[in-house]
């Protein structure tokens, strides 16, 4: 070990700035986590604020909407996992089969461009597309003889709209880059051998391509599981309405209304900690399962 370090000391030097960054911006602020258990008074500071034990957790867990926002958060994340997670994989596989470089590059560029558009604009586009009177979608429905729907006020549509807009349209192209990179790492000799053995395209995909990128898929999946509790509130706030709260109100939006808007940093921290602990458990669980079934994992 020591000998290794001495030999590669230059490489280890490169690590220092990053370790410092982590120490200063990640570990040092963790000191502030204690305000989740304190009645945080800004002017007195963290150390001087009185302890209140689990008070903030109690307030959060006992709020009448706790179950609803928890369920909504989980369901929305599951939707995203179920429908939005496979899309970039499919996209990358399709892209990999496209042999015309210009076509491939063009499609790639167009699919990952939405990633760079801010959520506010994406929400604006969605609102306009779905507008009941002049929106494109309703225009088409109308022409086809259907009756217009005010999509954004129907709770049943909210999750689909959200996942389609923010997880699929906005991110699918960009997420596919990782898979595409993994695909180009597969040894072409494997395909040649398969062709000689008489495997068709489908067989090749099943036996070579998919196993080749499986580790990448698993790692990204585990990371995604880690984010299951934090559905981004910015995006939801832009699309939800009181009338769609029953499916759209998630933990982060509720905390935003109850905590941050009112400046209750202690309550917001408690909720953040609660989320992080659950995410931590989920990640460990997902990693265990992944190791058991596919032999790949984060550690």
């Amino acid at each position, binding site marked *: 070990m020591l000998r290794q370090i001495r030999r590669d000391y230059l490489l280890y030097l490169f690590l220092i700035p990053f370790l410092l960054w982590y120490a200063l911006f990640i570990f040092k602020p*963790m000191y502030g986590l204690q305000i989740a258990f304190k009645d945080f008074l*800004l*002017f007195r500071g963290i150390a001087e604020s009185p302890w209140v034990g689990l008070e903030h957790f109690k307030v959060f867990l006992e709020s009448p909407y706790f179950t609803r926002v928890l369920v909504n958060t989980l369901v929305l994340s599951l939707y995203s996992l179920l429908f939005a997670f496979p899309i970039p994989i499919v996209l990358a596989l399709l892209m990999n089969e496209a042999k015309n470089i210009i076509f491939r590059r063009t499609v790639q560029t167009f699919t990952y461009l939405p990633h760079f558009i801010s959520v506010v604009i994406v929400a604006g586009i969605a609102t306009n597309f779905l507008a009941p009177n002049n929106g494109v979608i309703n225009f088409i429905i109308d022409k086809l003889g259907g009756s217009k729907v005010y999509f954004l006020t129907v709770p049943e549509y909210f999750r689909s709209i959200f996942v389609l807009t923010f997880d699929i349209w906005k991110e699918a192209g960009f997420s596919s880059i990782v898979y595409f990179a993994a695909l180009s790492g597969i040894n072409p000799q494997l395909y040649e051998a398969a062709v000689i053995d008489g495997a068709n395209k489908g067989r090749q995909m099943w036996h070579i391509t998919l196993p080749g990128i499986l580790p990448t898929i698993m790692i990204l999946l585990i990371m995604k599981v880690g984010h299951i509790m934090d559905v981004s509130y910015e995006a939801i706030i832009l699309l939800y309405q009181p*009338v769609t709260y029953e499916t759209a109100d998630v933990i982060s939006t*509720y905390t935003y209304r*109850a905590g941050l808007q009112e400046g209750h940093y202690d309550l917001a921290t408690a909720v953040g900690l609660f989320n992080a602990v659950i995410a931590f458990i989920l990640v460990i669980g997902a990693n265990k399962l992944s190791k058991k079934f596919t032999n790949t994992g984060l550690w």
Partner: protein
Amino acid sequence: MHGKKLAKIVFCVTLVAALAAGCSNSPKQEGTVAVDTNNSGETSKTPLELKIHLHYNDSRVFDNNSPVFAKAAELTQVTLKGTASPTATNSKETFNLMLVSGNLPDIIHGSKDDMNNAALQGALVPLDDLIKQHAPHLKKFLDDNDWVRKGSVASDGKLYYIPFVADGEASSGFFIRKDWLDKLGLPFPKTVDEYYKALTAFKNQDPNGNGLKDEVPYFNRNKAGVIELAQLFGARSVWYEQDGKVHYGKYEKEYKTAMSNVAKWYKEGLIDNEIYTRGSKARDVLLGNNTGGSTHDWFGSTASYNDSVKKSVPSIQFVPFMPPADINGTVKEEQSRPLLVARGWGISSSNKHAVETIKYFDFWFTEEGRRLSNFGLEGTHYDMVNGKPIFKDEVLKNEKSVLNQLVEVGAQLEIGVKQDFSYEQQWMNPIAKEGVNMYINNKTLLPLFPQLTFNDEEQKIISQKWSSIETFIMEKEQKWVMGVEQVDANFDSYLKTLKDMGMDDIVKIYNDAYERYLKS
């Protein structure tokens, strides 16, 4: 193997980052209050420089080069130097950072809640005695307008900051397309029934003459615009006082009638069916394409559409009219501008020149100070005509708005000062001015509910219960308006749920706080 280890480190650290997001460290700060009482009370003869924290509305910052404050320095010998970063874009955060830094400037400016919270933790000194001894103009103003002090004190009953006091209480009113009314041979609607008839006529009789039924009779750029109609049905949508008791409009039986009527209007297409997603551009869109018929909005900005859309809609006459009489025959307007702005400046506990500072605060309550803050510089922005400040022609005819010109030099800053509405009246759109005068002269404005001050115990209960209650109310409200749920069938269970959620406790807290407010 190596790669896996690295991934492991990276992963662990990322996770920790997620855990720690949103927390910050802060040094310890002693909250002692020290008032310099040795100073005998003479005006500061030697020039004095005081540091000030001022950052509000996420955008306005104290400008050290402001000509208005330079003029004030000339008159008072006190120069202010801003400490808030002009690039910061979140006032609340900036305020909190200033507090936790442990390095307090001499003067702190902030919102009522922030200021009083900071004060109770020892960051600000109480001002009552200082005002009594050293600030005659300020004292007179506070004595004459006791609601200013009552609405600003902290829960210990002491005054810690001098608030900004606005002027000109009429803010918003009803607007309607006068040219459409004329075309259909209808008068200005005087009652809620006439308003209903006018809107129905807009809907069905094609007043824009394009052969399509595309008119949107009532629209609003705010989601809350729907509830602004509730006042026509005898309901209130806010906290209000009646017969000595405090009530919450949406927890009263009148609200039921109002909601079922509003729901009926929505169903009949009198209310824009996109009202909940139309957003801030509603007026631009619906007035610009000649389909919007009536709204309830701010006088100034709404009246200006008569000019801005004239090109595409030459016939437009979008004018304010008196609120239609409600179902009980009362003519009233619930929305108005709160005169007492919950924001102002105070003296920090590390200020060694408390007496000079309060005298400086007092300057802004002298005639000269008030004029400086409202009208800018004499000779540059205004001239005195018959003892009144009148804006110069260059200022009124400048391509920049008068307000922007004033803001640029540091006037119309929301420090502890009394605004003077006549500054706005000189350049207001004539249509808006007519509306404002109509609403004020006819005394249609309902009194605004005062800003109450809650003690710690009360504040705790409110913050525990109110966000759930509000969520519930807003959800029901929208469901009723959109017809997802029937009002009549569900109202009793609505009241019961609110009761179960602790609404009665909140009402009681408001009543207690209101009683204290009356006594203070």
